[in-house]
């Protein structure tokens, strides 16, 4: 099983996590057209590549962001949303 590093709890097997989908910023719902909103709601950038994704560490209830390549399934870094850190290790260090 793959391993994933939760910024708060460290490296764990994937079975401890729940995938929360791609992290996406939607259009301004007050100004966008119906079609733009419908596209945001339904469409996805499905082509393989580096994605920002939501992941949830279930035992601790931690949501975080993982940057993962969906072709190679390699995770380049993980961090808490809004945490101003430039590499995944910072958060891990903090959790030690």
């Amino acid at each position, binding site marked *: 099983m793959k391993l994933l590093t939760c910024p*708060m*709890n460290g490296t*764990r*097997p994937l*079975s*401890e996590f729940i995938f929360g989908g791609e992290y996406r910023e939607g259009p301004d719902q007050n100004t966008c057209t119906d079609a733009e909103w419908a596209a945001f709601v339904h469409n996805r950038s499905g082509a393989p590549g580096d994605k920002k994704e939501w992941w949830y560490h279930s*035992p*601790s209830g*931690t949501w975080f962001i993982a940057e993962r390549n969906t072709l190679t399934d390699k995770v380049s870094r993980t961090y808490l949303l809004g945490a101003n850190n430039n590499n995944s290790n910072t958060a891990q260090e*903090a959790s030690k």
Partner: protein
Amino acid sequence: MQVSNMKTISQTSPVAHAQLKSNAKWALVNGINTAVEFGSAEVEQARKKILGVTDVSCLSRYGVKGAQAAKWLAERQVTTPANPNSWSVSDQNTLVLRLGGSEFVLEDQFAGSTCARLASDTNRVPNVYKVPRADAAFILSGSEVLNMLSELCSLDLREKSLGAEEVIMTQIAGISAIVLRQDLNGEQVYRIWCDGTYGPYLWDVMVEIAVELGGGAVGLACYQS
């Protein structure tokens, strides 16, 4: 220890459902009906040495979280662990678990009163949120404990990997649980907490494996003397 008595508000260990089928001796501990003996002292001591599973859900617990929780505890003379996901011992031997950065679980020893003291403070303070606890809690002891845990948990829980002060939130037998290892009366034991409603399930799984490995259920009495 007092014998079960209908005048008080009867409470039972969340694990009790799984223990009823064994011929345990029951007693009220901290007001909670608890299985205190599963066999003779010799049998239990033998199990405990190989692989003992003990239900300690009856110990008093207190949970609190929020950005100001550490400060709030400090103001109430509770020493909290300096690092996230670690544990320490406060006065009266109260265990203080720091879950993540800002959540705390306290667990008193049998005679401890810290949790009760904190619970009596019902003032609500900004960014301090009480987390009611209804854990099933266990002590696992003996030479085969890692043998069992290796079947229940995918993490490396050996001494060399699980730091003495480390608290981990992981999955045990597929459910979320808190794990740490502790030196208890000179013995290396593992402590596990899970949501009380999963308690009977986890008890069954652990005792099944413990029996296979030559151990089994051990009553709370073993740890009270």
